[in-house]
Every structure is written in C-alpha cells, then in structure tokens.
C-alpha cells in the first residue's frame, strides 16, 4: 500500500475511533479523549495531503453495500493542498474544543458529529469521481447540520439558523449533482478523468459549468447565496464555526478550482467574467456588512464572504486571462487563489477561536457590550490581534502576502488589445482596494472595541482567560499566521505543486517571486529593515522612559469632562456609523425615531427613542418574497390533500390504470 493509501485508511480508522470514544467514554474523560482523537484525525488528513502534494500516488476503493459505484479516493496534488488545509484547521479546532466544550457541545452526539464532519471534509478533496465526491459532500453537510443544531435548546434562533443552513446546503448539493450528471452524460463516465474529456466549447459544458459554479458558490457563501453564513456561524459552537468558516467553505472553492483547472480547463471568456462578477459583488457586499456588524461572529462570517469573493475574483481573473492567452498573469492568478485559501484558513481560524474565547469568558458576542479585554485576556488579545492583522492584509502576515500576489496579477494582467480585459482589470483593482480599506476598518473596529479601553458592560468586567487547550490552539494558529507571512516560500512551493503551473518562484530564505509579472517580495528582508529602523526609535524612547517614567492618572481628560464613564466610549455601532451613512443605499438600515412630547407641548420633549436595525438586504429583498411565494403555492397545493382516504386511493388507482394503458399501447 502506498503512503497515500495508508494515510486515507488512517483517517477512516481514526474517525471511527473518535466516534466510538464519543459514544462510549465517560463524560469526564470524553472531551479529552475524543478531542485528542479528532486532533489525530486532522493531523492524519494534513499529512496525507502533504504526501499527495509532493507527488504521492494512491488509490483507495471502498465498496459500499448500496447500489452505487464504490467510493474511489485518489487525491491529486490540488486535492492534497485542500486536504492539508482541512486537516490542519480540524486539528487545531479539536485541540481548542477540548477546553471549550460545555453543556450540549460536550455531548457524545456533538463529538461524533464533529469527527464525521472532519472526515467528510477531508475526503472531499480526495474523491476521484463524482459519486465519491457527492457522498463525502453529503456526509460533511449532514454532520455540520447536526453540529449547528447543538445549542438549540438554549437559544431559539439556532433552529431557524439550522433550517436555513440545511436548505442552502442541500440546494448546493442538488445543483452540483445535476451539474455532474450533465458532465458525466457528456463524458460517458462518472470519474473525473472521463469528465475532463468533455469539449469546453459545447453547450453541455457551459450548462454544467453554470450549475457547478452556482452549487459550489452556495457552499462557499457567495452573494446572493450567502444568507446561511451570518446565521449559521453565530448559532454553531465556536470550534465548529471556526472549522466551517476556515475549511468547509474552502471546499466550495476547491470545487470551482476542480471544474476550472481539471474538468474543463480551456474555458470561455464569459466563464471568467461570471466568476469575476460573483467574486466582486461578494467581496464588496461581504465587507460592507461586516463593517457595520456588531455581533462579533456575524462580523467574522461576513468577512468570510468577502474573502471567498476575493478567491473567486482570483479564479475568474485566471480563467479570463487564460482565455485571452495572457499566460503569465493567468498562472499567477491561479496560484494566488491557493495563497488566499491558505492564508484565510489560518487567520480565520485564529479569529473565530479568539471570538470563542471571548464568548466563553464573557458570555456575550455583542461588541457594544465588550471592551477592556486586552488586560484581562492577554493571550486571546494577542492572538486575535494577529488574526485581525492577517484579515486586514497588513504586514507581516500571510494575508498580506496573498493580497500582494492578487494585486500583482491584476495590475500586470491587463492587456490593452482586449478592451474587455482593459476595463475589467482596473475595476477589479479598485474593488480589491476598496475591500482592503473596508476590511482594515472592520478589524480595527473589532479588535479596538473588544480589547482596548474599558469594559462597556458588566460581563466584560469579569472576563478571564480560558483553559490551557484553548490558549495553546490560539497560539498555534497565530504563529501559523505570522509564520506563513514571514516565510511564504513554504506556501508558495505547495501552491506551485498543487496548481502544476509555473508563475510563482521561491528565492532566498523566504522570498516570493512572481516571474510571470516581474515582481518579488521578501518579508524577512522587510522585517529586518523594520527592525533596523526601529532600533534607534526604541533606544531613544527607552532612555527617555528611564529618565522620566509615565505617570498613571485616574481619569482620562476627555476634553475636560470630569464624569468620563465607560458608557461614553464609542461603541461598534457608532464606530461604523459614518460608513453606514456613506453606504446607506446599499445597506438600507431601518431607522425608527419616536419622540414623546411632554404634555401638550410641541417643543418640550419628554422622551426620545431611536432604533436602528441592519438586516441583510439580500435576505429581505430576495429571499423573503421567494419564501412567501413558495408558501402560497404550498397552501394551494394543500387542497389536493383533503384528508379523504378515498381520494388518495383514487389517485393511485387512476395512476395504475393510466400506466397500464400506456404500457399496452
């Protein structure tokens, strides 16, 4: 058996072991044992992915008792890359969960579902034909629905969130199923190898492309199919949200890459435009909603939409440029997608685990009630800060490297001969720049309001750091964020092997070069330069501090006000208020102003009440009417079911006669 096959078997065995431990172990030991087993499962997945990435071959065939083809697992280097991402994120989240789980999330159902979820997620990139892919996909979807429902007894909104999630995820399953069906009919076979022989110019290929992209985009959280993300992530327990956001939505991105790179490689230009359009709209809408969100997890969920939008933008650029035969930047764009995937997985895990720590410590997710957590929870604050730096694409984090590569491929990809490309590329650069700016603001808000200054509510005043396993997981993921940013060569080598194209080079200790566009970046050198520059500043300030140390005072000056209470601080809502005014048309907040006058007077006011509510515009404008329409159709159809058994039997009788007549003709 080859190493890859050993790795795949190890994953199956470990998943089974975790489920058994979850069911059989005593409650006191359950978290530790199941968590360790799940972490081992994640590590096994990551190792298998690395082996597949470095060229290991292997083919595992698992016959099933069902009347379908057996499951065939044979990961390509691209699949190996995503397996590494899924496995690493799962391992870190499992370690975190050991300390985090309490109440319903510590039950055996929850742990068993977690193990199944990790297994499904790690097997999706390994599938070699459509049936295995769909089976693993459904496993992942079903297990994650169970996990989202974990706390449905404590919080009522969890049920509706799980319903939305279940519906959207099965919508994506349906679309992917039909897409694969079209492709396999055209390619005469369900294996991916057979499907890759379909002619991309044919109508069938285009139909399949649209269906598959829509299905994968729903899973990835692209606007307008993103409505499940901001509901499901706050509803699920934090370690589950981390895995869902950092690894599961990547499976949607993997699906699109599979279609674009492996199944239908020589695509048409309008395919690239479709992906670009989806990507830009999602990136802008996602970060806009994130910048005005006050629920910490909802903010992070919308930020995932933004990042996935950027990934789709990168893929779309690659497809478009390749269709116009601009080879260098096209390869860079394809590689950039994977850089974005890896960096987003790293910093989003950190951010969600940090948010989980905050929730664990204070019991609130609302930024308007937090504050001052930096002093009480230093590890979480540091890790969340590093994650926020990564999300805002600032040096020296992996987010910075990924965004830099994206901008390079966009700036150098334009060709004036093709008018379309010449207009689309600058627009894409502008969109990326705007989302980068808004992301900056969002994460300054998230970090600043939650961790700086003073607590805005009583819960934040009693916060404390969580147990050791949570801290370890946080530190590990923060180190990965910085490490990948400092030594992007590791990521770049993996990306080159996964994509199988050139375009990304590694030089020096950690430098990243893009020969296709003539750009290079060496974060270690940048860091070294910074340190050199900072030395003089640090020396001067240290000497000044020794001579005259700072004096602590009780109250801040606050413009001369004596009563400067913590309630007077800016909240997250007020921080985002200028922005929500600028983008009023896109966000459409509901504002309610109630003025109660004193007595009969029109000028003396007794009470003023202001309410502002920001709903997801897509949900309110597009989904709610759709749901109402389906409701009306359902009520009308209910008249067919009036409860009379005779009518039902009559239906079957008539059907039988009709069939017999048809058959005998």
């Amino acid at each position, binding site marked *: 058996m080859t190493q890859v096959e050993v790795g795949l078997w190890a994953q199956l065995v470990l998943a089974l072991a975790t489920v058994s431990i979850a069911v059989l172990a005593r409650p006191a030991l359950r978290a530790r044992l199941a968590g360790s087993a799940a972490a081992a499962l994640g590590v096994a997945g990551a190792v298998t992915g690395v082996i597949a990435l470095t060229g290991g071959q292997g083919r595992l065939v698992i016959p099933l008792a069902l009347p379908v083809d057996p499951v065939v697992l044979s990961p390509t280097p691209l699949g190996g890359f995503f397996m590494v991402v899924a496995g690493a994120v799962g391992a870190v989240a499992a370690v975190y969960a050991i300390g985090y789980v309490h109440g319903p999330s510590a039950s055996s159902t929850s742990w068993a579902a977690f193990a199944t979820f990790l297994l499904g997620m790690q097997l999706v990139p390994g599938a070699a034909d459509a049936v295995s892919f769909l089976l693993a996909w459904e496993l992942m979807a079903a297990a994650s629905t169970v996990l989202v429902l974990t706390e449905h007894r404590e919080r009522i909104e969890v049920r509706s969130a799980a319903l939305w999630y279940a519906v959207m995820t099965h919508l994506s399953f349906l679309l992917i199923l039909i897409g694969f069906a079209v492709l396999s009919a055209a390619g005469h076979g369900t294996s991916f190898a057979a499907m890759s022989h379909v002619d991309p110019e044919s109508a069938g290929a285009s139909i399949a492309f649209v269906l598959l992209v829509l299905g994968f985009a729903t899973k990835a959280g692209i606007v307008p199919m993103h409505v499940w993300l901001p509901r499901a992530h706050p509803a699920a327990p934090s370690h589950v949200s981390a895995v869902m956001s950092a690894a599961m939505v990547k499976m949607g991105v993997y699906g699109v890459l599979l279609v674009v790179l492996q199944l239908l490689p020589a695509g048409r230009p309008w395919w690239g435009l479709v992906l670009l359009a989806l990507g830009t709209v999602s990136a802008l809408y996602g970060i806009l909603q994130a910048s005005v969100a006050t629920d910490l997890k909802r903010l992070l969920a919308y930020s995932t939409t933004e990042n996935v939008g950027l990934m789709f933008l990168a893929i779309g650029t690659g497809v478009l440029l390749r269709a116009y035969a601009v080879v260098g930047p096209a390869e860079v764009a394809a590689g950039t997608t994977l850089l974005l995937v890896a960096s987003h997985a790293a910093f989003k895990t950190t951010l969600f685990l940090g948010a989980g720590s905050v929730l664990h410590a204070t019991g609130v997710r609302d930024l308007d009630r937090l504050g001052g957590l930096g002093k009480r929870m230093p590890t979480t604050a540091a890790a969340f800060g590093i994650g926020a730096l990564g999300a805002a694409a600032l040096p020296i984090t992996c987010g910075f490297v990924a965004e830099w590569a994206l901008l390079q491929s966009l700036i150098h990809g334009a060709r004036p001969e093709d008018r379309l490309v010449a207009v689309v590329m600058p627009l894409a650069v502008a969109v990326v720049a705007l989302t980068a700016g808004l992301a900056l603001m969002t994460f300054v808000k998230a970090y600043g309001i939650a961790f700086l200054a003073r607590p805005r509510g009583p819960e934040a005043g009693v916060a404390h750091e969580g147990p050791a396993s949570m801290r370890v997981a946080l530190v590990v993921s923060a180190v990965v964020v910085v490490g990948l940013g400092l030594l992007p060569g590791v990521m770049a080598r993996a990306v080159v092997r996964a994509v199988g194209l050139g375009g990304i080079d590694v030089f020096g200790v950690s430098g990243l070069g893009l020969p296709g566009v003539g750009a290079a970046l060496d974060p270690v050198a940048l860091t070294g330069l910074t340190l050199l520059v900072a030395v003089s500043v640090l020396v001067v300030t240290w000497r000044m501090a020794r001579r005259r140390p700072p004096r602590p005072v009780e109250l801040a000056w606050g413009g001369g006000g004596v009563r400067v209470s913590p309630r007077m601080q800016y909240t997250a809502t007020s921080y985002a208020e200028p922005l929500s005014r600028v983008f009023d048309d896109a966000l459409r907040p509901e504002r309610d102003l109630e003025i109660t006058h004193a007595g009969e007077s029109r000028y003396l006011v007794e009470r003023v009440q202001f309410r502002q509510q920001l709903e997801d515009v897509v949900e309110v404008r597009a989904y709610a009417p759709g749901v109402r329409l389906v409701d009306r159709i359902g009520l009308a159809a209910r008249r067919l079911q009036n*409860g009379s058994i*005779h009518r039902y039997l*009559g239906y*079957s009788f008539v059907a039988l006669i009709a069939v017999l*007549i048809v058959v005998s003709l």
Partner: protein
Amino acid sequence: MAPVLFAELVAFCAGVLLLTGVLIVWRRDLRAIVRLLAVQGVALAFLVAVIGVEARLPELLAVALLVLVLKGIALPVLLVRVSGPAGPGQVETPTINTTASLISLALLTTLAYLVSQPLKAAGSGPAAAAVPIGISLVLFGFMVLASRRHAISQLVGFLMLDNGIATVAFLIAGGLPLVVELGAALDILLVVLVLQVLTGRIRAEFGDIDLDDLSELRD
C-alpha cells in the same frame, strides 16, 4: 393428468374466481362479502393444487394447503371478528352506485385483456389463457379499495388484490417458490392484524369506522 381435464379444471377455478370478484363488487352486505372472499380463497387453493398435480410439484400442494388455511379460513375469520358482533347484516352505501360499478367492472375486464397480451405470450398452455382473469381481480380489488367507505370492505378489496396477483403468478410461472409465497402470506397476515387492532381502537374511540368521518382527523 389429461390435458383436457386440466384445462377444464383451470377454467372452472378461473370462473369461480371471476364470479366471486364480481359478486364482491356487487353485494353490499359486509358478511356476504367476507364469505365470498373465503370462497375465492378456496378456489385459489384448488387452482394451485391443480397446477401442482399437473406439473408434478409436491411443494405446490403444500402451497395450496397454506393458501387454503390462510386465505380460505384464517383471514375471513379475522375479518368477521373485526367487523363486530353478529347482528343484522351491516350494509354500507358505497361512493359509486351499483350500476356505475358494474359498468366499470366491464371496462376493467377489457383493460385486463388488453394488458395481458404480452403476459400470455410469456406463459404457455391453458393456464396462460386464464391470466386476464387474474389481472381483472387485481383491478377489481383496487376499485373496491378506493371506493368503499367501510374499513372492512377496504380490507376485502386489498385481499382480493393480493389474490389476483397470486393468481397471475401461479398461472404464468407455475407458482412462486415456497419461501416467497410464505413471505407474502406473512406480510398479508401482518397487515390484517395491524388493521384489526387499529380499527378496534378507532371503533372504541369514535364509535364506528366510517372512513369519511375519519377525515375530520386531518386538521
């Protein structure tokens, strides 16, 4: 057995089956319907025995015995027990009036003859010629099931449906393997037992088992 005797015996059984089927659709009285079903069961058992003797398969005789016990005796007895204590025969008013139901019988028989052309080709000899009767029994049974109000009549229709299927199976393929027949028989038994318990509970709860009234339970 002489071929002529065999053909005549098969025709006789088929005739009895068809006659009882028509009478079940025609009669209103619940007890009469159950008795007719019992006669149908006996006729079916006899048919199976004849085929068994002709084809020299002793296991078919065992099957015939099983059919006799089950469909000729046990199930009708159960049905009588379900329908309640003996009294002036309960009569029901079906949803389709008698004239319409008899006309539809004719139409269904025509349909059965049309449909069974390919099936007749598959089988052979006089046995195969009686296949349309089996299919008509299926259709009659379904019609009874769909158009009667009383739960007992519906059960009778269901059992007639099963009789028709069994008839077709024996006529074409010379019978089903013992295991399959046993399994099917057990299924039927189970269905009837469950329905017996259910109707008993419904009657205890609501007083009678008129199904149209039961549609009130929907909302």
